[in-house]
């Protein structure tokens, strides 16, 4: 029986619920952008959204297709240069939540977006780190959003693009990092959180209709389940409506031939 929402919607709604009006989020394109704007349009109208293109406090009416859409700038409180964004805003530790995607993540939440295989003769050359290495270091918390598969959830990543917890334990603090790192991984099957001691990613809740076996099969290491494992609350109708409206506006705005005019200069 169909649950009445997609697994993408489940991820977006779940991510949105983690946010509050006090958060300043460093937002990536795609699911993170949908989640952050859903939070803004529902329970967290005061949330500050920041895109690495330099737009601060942006309130787009439709989701951007690129990290630097004009819509982001037009609806922002202000737009700063890219050096300023990385220097004054990210590096200085002013961002509470950073969202990252991953081609691979390992059991200690290290993230690979660089290469599959060896660096010099890769099997697959991925886009690379972009803002992620320093986002992972300087946002107070990192939320990772990615589909669950054994190829993506691996014992050890081929290349550490962005540091999570290294080999676990106190590795992160030992590097001099004072931020919390990846505190939450949201997949299409479950939520995972690092174990407080070992920092190994551990299943915190299963999405409705998902069982342990499915998660085990989709994870590349012998994944552990939290003692108080629960079910992730499903999306509510109100959340789905706001999200679907947003996605519909977005699709319409970005349809070929539909020129959204830049403002007059």
């Amino acid at each position: 029986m169909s649950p009445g929402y997609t697994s993408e919607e489940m991820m977006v709604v779940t991510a949105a619920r983690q946010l509050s009006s006090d958060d300043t989020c460093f937002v990536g394109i795609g699911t993170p952008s949908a989640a952050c704007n859903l939070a803004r349009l529902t329970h967290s109208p005061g949330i500050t959204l920041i895109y690495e293109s330099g737009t601060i406090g942006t309130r787009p009416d439709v989701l951007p297709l690129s990290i630097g859409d004009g819509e982001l700038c037009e609806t922002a409180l202000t737009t700063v240069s890219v050096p300023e964004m990385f220097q004054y805003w990210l590096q200085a530790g002013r961002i509470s939540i950073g969202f990252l995607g991953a081609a691979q993540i390992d059991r200690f939440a290290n993230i690979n977006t660089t290469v599959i295989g060896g660096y010099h003769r890769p099997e697959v050359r991925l886009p690379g780190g972009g803002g992620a290495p320093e986002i992972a270091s300087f946002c107070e918390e990192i939320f990772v959003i990615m589909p669950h598969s054994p190829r993506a959830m691996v014992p050890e990543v081929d290349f550490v693009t962005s540091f999570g917890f290294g080999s676990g334990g106190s590795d992160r603090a030992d590097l001099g990092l004072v931020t919390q790192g990846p505190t939450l991984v949201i997949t299409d099957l479950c939520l995972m959180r690092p174990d407080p001691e070992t920092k190994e990613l551990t299943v915190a809740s299963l999405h409705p209709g998902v069982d342990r076996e499915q998660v085990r099969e989709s994870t590349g290491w012998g994944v552990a389940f939290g003692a108080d494992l629960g079910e992730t609350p499903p999306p509510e109708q109100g959340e789905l409506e706001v999200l679907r409206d947003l996605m519909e506006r977005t699709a319409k705005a970005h349809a070929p031939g539909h020129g959204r005019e830049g403002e007059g200069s």
Partner: protein
Amino acid sequence: MPAMTSLREAIATHVHDGDTVCMEGFTHLIPFAAGHEVIRQGRRDLTLIRMTPDLIYDQLIGAGCVARLVFSWGGNPGVGSLHRLRDAVENGWPRALEIEEHSHAAMANAYWAGAAGLPVALFRGYLGSDLPAVNESIRFLDDPFTGERLAAVPAIRPDVTVIHAQRADREGNVLIEGIVGVQKEAALAARRAVVVTVEEIVDDLRAPSHNSVILPSWSVDAIAEAPGGAAPSYAHGYYTRDNAFYTEWDAISRDRERFRQWLEDEVLGAPP
């Protein structure tokens, strides 16, 4: 005062085989027209620097202009891979491509240092990442006051920087508005020449604020009017991003033959 000239002349004068060139623009104001002119003029052995190579560098790489790429995120934004970049890295087609790979923070700081006339950029970064292991231009040093370990990368100092801006006045002052990216830094970091294409050359720059982002005429070497010169990216206040082309590029660029045909039809055979 910069030369007010044609795009063809500006590129012929300032971009030479073997040069290190930055064509910047963070999603916004990407200098496509200028990049296509570099392809038409058949430049070779370029070192290209750009945080987000985007379609324009995919095209330059596929056209065989590029020996080396310095970058921090090499994808088609919102779509997927840059297939010409991948084909060069994975298969050496149409020629081997050496890469130097950074994070955005490193490149943003390296541009900043270049603009500031500093030889090196010091920042908090690369902690725990494998990138320093594969890029020898990433080093670390200790703050002499606190002992904190900081990342260091050399300043970016290209031979030539090429950017696109909204407009220039007749004296050659250039206005950049909206998502300003690293264009000002890239321009000020150039060792030899700064080439700017603009949507229009006007009597009055119409800077909205006393604090607008402006390159004074004496910091620019050549200005060429190139309306639409940022398409399929966009120019805030002039036209929007052609998202459909970004999607279409995925199919065009996946196939070498189809790419070659596109290049023939849309760039080599097209007037500047």
